[in-house]
């Protein structure tokens, strides 16, 4: 009798504790299905990343709230390629981020569901995790104007944007919950019974984090597995020399930085009269007028047109801009202003610089079948 009372007392005590811990604790808990079948225990396989060789590649941040798993990455990839994310069910992330173009598109401005045109060039998606390695205080990590602090939140921007996917989040949750396959995939990846937008964002972010590009000719050269020709070798020096191209302050030191960007916001002097004020829109600080996220110089052969507004169609135009077209006053970055007369590159220098830039094209990346659903 006393035993019974004690047991009842304990059960009474434990149930509320369990319930309240479920409610308060949003961490992933091993979930069993209702029948108590232990083979159904939620146990995703950790995803192991193979970092490229040649450089000492920085590692992904340890992520305790959204750890990479095979199931999560696969689900993220499926969602990335699925037009279910858009209101019209015609546009997926891959509509504007195509693998063959290193996950950007080849248009100046991307098209929305009804043919609307935005004002910014789509961005290539690779080595995105590098932006996450910036110091914590720096939250201007993603988008041309640095408006997004993290990948998980960035996902909502195109989904909710009226001229991109224009999707109601409630509608999206309904569609995914009613889908024949997605509920199982979410259960496997996150152990959840009811799909919410939070897990959509987590899965897509996982897929985005494994988009790593580092198998170009230049990476092979770094490992001693390939030779640069004379023009490419000279171009490397143009890139890295303060007297010539002086590109490395923002696009990374050839020797140490495998990303070919510092991921920071700079004004590279595109305009004397600034139409799109970039980071300033976020901060309201005049020093930020015309600052945009420095893009990586990897995969340039696939990512044209160039700059936040896609104004240049060729690398020749870009290099000529840096050589003679930069507005070197006003809000423009000091590393541009320090060459008041321009770079004075010879025709040979320009051709060499472009030859070097093309050694950063990574054909393995744009052809890797694991990054596609086909």
């Amino acid at each position: 009798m006393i035993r019974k009372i004690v047991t009842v007392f304990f059960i009474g005590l434990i149930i509320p504790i369990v319930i309240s811990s479920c409610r308060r604790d949003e961490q992933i808990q091993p979930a069993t299905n209702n029948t108590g079948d232990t083979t159904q225990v939620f146990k995703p396989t950790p995803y192991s990343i193979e970092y490229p060789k040649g450089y000492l590649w920085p590692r992904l941040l340890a992520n305790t709230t959204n750890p990479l798993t095979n199931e999560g990455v696969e689900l993220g990839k499926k969602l990335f390629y699925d037009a279910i994310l858009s209101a019209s069910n015609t546009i997926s992330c891959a509509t504007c981020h195509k693998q063959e173009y290193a996950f950007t598109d080849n248009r100046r401005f991307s098209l929305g569901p009804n043919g609307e045109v935005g004002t910014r060039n789509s961005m290539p998606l690779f080595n995105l995790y590098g932006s996450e390695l910036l110091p914590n205080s720096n939250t201007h990590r993603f988008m041309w104007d640095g408006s997004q602090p993290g990948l998980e939140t960035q996902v909502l921007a195109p989904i909710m944007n009226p001229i991109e996917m224009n999707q109601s989040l409630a509608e999206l949750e309904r569609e995914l919950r009613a889908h024949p396959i997605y509920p199982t995939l979410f259960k496997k990846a996150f152990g959840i019974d009811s799909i919410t937008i939070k897990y959509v964002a987590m899965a897509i972010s996982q897929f985005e984090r494994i988009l790593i590009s580092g198998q170009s000719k230049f990476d092979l050269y770094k490992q001693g597995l390939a030779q640069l020709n004379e023009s490419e070798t000279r171009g490397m020096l143009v890139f890295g020399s303060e007297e010539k191209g002086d590109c490395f302050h923002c696009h990374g030191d050839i020797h140490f930085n495998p990303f070919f960007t510092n991921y920071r916001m700079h004004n590279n002097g595109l305009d004397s009269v600034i139409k799109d004020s970039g980071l300033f829109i976020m901060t309201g600080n005049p020093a930020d007028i015309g600052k945009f996220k420095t893009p990586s110089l990897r995969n340039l052969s696939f990512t044209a047109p160039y700059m936040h507004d896609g104004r240049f169609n060729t690398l020749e135009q870009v290099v000529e801009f840096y050589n003679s077209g930069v507005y070197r006053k006003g809000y423009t970055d000091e590393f541009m202003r320090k060459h008041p007369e321009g770079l004075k590159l010879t025709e040979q220098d320009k051709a060499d610089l472009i030859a070097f830039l093309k050694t950063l094209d990574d054909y393995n990346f744009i052809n890797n079948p694991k990054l596609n659903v086909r």
Partner: protein
Amino acid sequence: MRITNFSKKLILILGILFFPALLMLSCNDEGSEVKKETNYDGQGLNYNTTGNLIINIIHLFNENNLTRGNKYVTDALDTISVNSLKYYVSNVQLKKSNGEWTNLKTYNLIDIEDPASLSNTISGIPAENYTKLKFNVGIDSAMNRAGVQDGDLSPLNDMFWSWTADFIFFRIKGNYSTNKAMTLDIGGNQHLMTVEVDLTTIKQSNQTNSITLAMNVANIFNKPNKYDLKTMSTDIHTANNADLPKLTQNINTSVFTLSLNK
């Protein structure tokens, strides 16, 4: 001699003038004096064991209950009506007798159209004697940057600027003047609001204690800053808006009070 006479008169006059004032002061003082004297253990919220706190919120326009769609007049003589009022009450903290704060890590969305949201129960409050309550109106910067969330923090609640990934901390929507639309959205880490409420005027020592906060919408526009809708922003959608600090200061200081008549 003349001087003494004069000063006597002066004292008399001053005395007559100020006596009622003194009386009034002492009347007022009496309340707070008593409060201070009786600020012993057991004053405020007292928990002998781990317990719960129910926080109810009522919405007023000055002394009247706020009714959606009704017309009210602010101190700047703007006629306004409220259609939607939503905001986050988060990080409820209680002050212990040793002066430290216990942060209960709560995040609740308050929505006048959702009666269930107006009463929130916080569980797991450590045994202590608490004299003050403090909370954020909005979302702290860590959570603001923690990625997409569920429940009260889900972007489905429409309290999210997707283009900058910022929570909207506070939203009041309605009309002003002759049916002109007004939307005041407050967000951005620099605009996180903090409200402090004294609890020593009440005494409760139960397993579950309950308090009621009165949220006076009038003071969003009145105190200490007069927010004149004829000259100030009536459509705020970014953290950069220059008028936001006037609203946040009002919300910090004058909008929430402890309601004693539950």
